[in-house]
């Protein structure tokens, strides 16, 4: 394999990893606050069609991204309401959201199937760095959303581990009763984190329909929402590790196209790679969790019921 090909695969891995990274960073916040949102797949789909339709209507790619964020946020608030305010089962509520998102997106998108997207977000090379060999084209000749996702992940890490807000989020997810006793509004923190997660998934969806594909078709996320969810566990709830994980997962997708063109292997069999890799990653995550004694936030999946708190 030549250096050029390596750079090309790396470039594709980062592109493919970007929607996963966005979804995972948002979900890390939701889960760190104690709420698991299995609805990512549905939110991404709604984000994808909202972004696509908005951009087509306004001619502004950025408006598409903003609309997708807002749509994702609105959808996630439904999950926040059922699971935070109504103490609902988070697994079932999340799955319901995934179904709702699938249905809504197919209904919203029925006029847009097969339409071309004339408005593009062009790659913006970072001056100087883009000319480096291999890493130049791979890292520094990407579209703005790739840089944005990276920046969001870095800021998310900083906020989570180095600021008061981050301490609040982690406290709410690990020991909501104590956080409450310290004067933290558990419900507000959880709502905010779930909403942020929804906005990020919406953005990820719009990236798929506006930049990565770019087109709209039913079920176009192809399981990336679930993979982003798995990535959260793989990254051990740490946004920095999620960056590495997302690009690694993206590489499995890139590898699939590379193997198909270079070796002529069957496309459906190669298409299994990202999903099989996800199962493998879950295994790695479990052994890592056992070895390093870090695990899921202690209150993950458990509704916080104020009247029943033990003082």
């Amino acid at each position, binding site marked *: 394999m030549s250096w050029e090909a390596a750079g090309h695969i790396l470039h594709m891995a980062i592109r493919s990893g970007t929607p996963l990274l966005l979804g995972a960073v948002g979900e890390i916040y939701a889960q760190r606050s104690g709420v698991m949102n*299995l609805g990512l797949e*549905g939110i991404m789909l709604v984000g994808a069609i909202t972004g696509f339709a908005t951009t087509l209507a306004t001619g502004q790619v950025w408006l598409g991204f903003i609309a997708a964020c807002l749509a994702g946020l609105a959808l996630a608030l*439904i999950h926040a*309401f*059922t699971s935070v*305010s*109504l*103490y*609902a*089962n988070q*697994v*079932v*509520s999340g*799955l*319901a*959201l*995934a*179904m*709702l*998102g*699938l*249905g*809504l997106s*197919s*209904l*919203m*998108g*029925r006029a847009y199937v097969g339409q071309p997207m004339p408005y593009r977000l062009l790659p913006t090379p970072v001056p100087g760095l883009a000319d480096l060999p291999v890493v130049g084209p791979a890292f520094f000749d990407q579209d703005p959303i790739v840089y944005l996702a990276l920046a969001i992940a870095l800021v998310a890490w900083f906020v989570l581990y180095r600021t008061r807000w981050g301490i609040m989020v982690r406290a709410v997810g690990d020991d909501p009763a104590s956080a*409450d006793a310290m*004067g933290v*509004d558990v419900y507000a923190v959880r709502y905010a984190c779930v909403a942020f997660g929804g906005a990020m998934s919406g953005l990820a969806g719009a990236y798929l329909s506006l930049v990565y594909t770019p087109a709209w078709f*039913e*079920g176009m996320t*192809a*399981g990336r929402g*679930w993979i982003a*969810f*798995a990535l959260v*566990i793989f990254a051990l709830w740490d946004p920095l590790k999620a960056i590495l994980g997302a690009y690694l997962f993206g590489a499995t997708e890139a590898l699939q196209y590379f193997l198909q063109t270079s070796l002529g292997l*069957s496309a*459906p*069999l190669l*298409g*299994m790679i990202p*999903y*099989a890799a*996800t*199962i493998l990653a*879950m*295994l790695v995550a*479990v*052994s890592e969790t056992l070895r390093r004694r870090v695990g899921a936030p202690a209150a993950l999946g458990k509704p916080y*019921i104020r*009247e*029943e708190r033990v003082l």
Partner: protein
Amino acid sequence: MRLPFGLRLERRLEEEGWLKLAVPICSIVLALALASGVFAAHGLNPALVYGTVFSRLLGTHTGLAFLVIKSIPLLLCAAGLVLAFRARVWNIGAEGQLLLGSVAAAGLALFVLPDAPACLLIPLMFLAGFLAGAAWALLPAVLKAKLNVDEVITTLMMNYIAYKLVEYLIYGPWRGKATWGFPFTDIIPANAQLPLIPGTSIHWPTLLLALAAAGAMFVLLERTSLGYEVKVYGGNPDLARAVGMRPGKIILICMLISGGLAGLAGVGELAGVHKRLKYPWTISGGYGFTAIIVAWLARLNPLACVLTATFMGALLAAGSMMRASFNVPYASVSVFNGLILLCLVAGEVLLRYRVKLVFYRREEEGAGP
């Protein structure tokens, strides 16, 4: 910042019987109402849609048969899911397990025993389908039982792998000779096709199996020690461990049975409906996901699943009709699915809590959260 009003939830001391029935019914009504809004927003007159679909579905023999056909795989999958969900084992992989049942049946009928008599071939197909479905659930089951790997993700990933496997077969080695280039297998021989109730297209062997499965799951849960263990483990895993139950065994059995039953549904779809292996989504059609709602709507009671499977079968049939009559994508039936499940899961709170709207006075507001 605090709103001047909010919801206060007070724990109920005992569950009220009428609410157990009222919550599912209200969920359905509310979901239909919300879906009307969604349809209206997309330029479809909900009254016209519901009216047309309702009259065609319940007013004609073919409509009713269509409803039953859609209910059969739902009931089979849901019966197994009830068992798994009772143990708090989240098998979301019924979709893939169903597809593997179809693959096993197609392989047996097309390549292994194409000349066997129906009385031998059909039972063998169901057996193979059960085993294939269970086998597809085996990896997530073992990972969950031995290493506590989250089964939601692994079963979902197995779904996608199953889609790709079927695609590989129909585009590759199993592609038929008489399909004019379409990605199908050949039609299975007549002796492998399931018998139908005369005058309808209902494949009755699968229907009987589905009803039997619901009954069997009820007996298993209510009359056997394994069922008792499942319920104790699902209610309180720590307690189950403390009294010496083996969670690994419970997880494995629940996953394998639910996978196997989904596999049976796949055999029915292949040998009773499509008669050939086709594009994966055409075969599985979201039954595995819709069965989650069937199970939840039945409040995880296997016998009640008969009723809820019929209802959700009607909804899926309605979805197919809407696609034909109103040019609405089939996946939009998921709008109903999602809304019903959301209302249902939100309604659970009413069973356990009294919900009151309260208005905070000024001084209370100042006291903070």
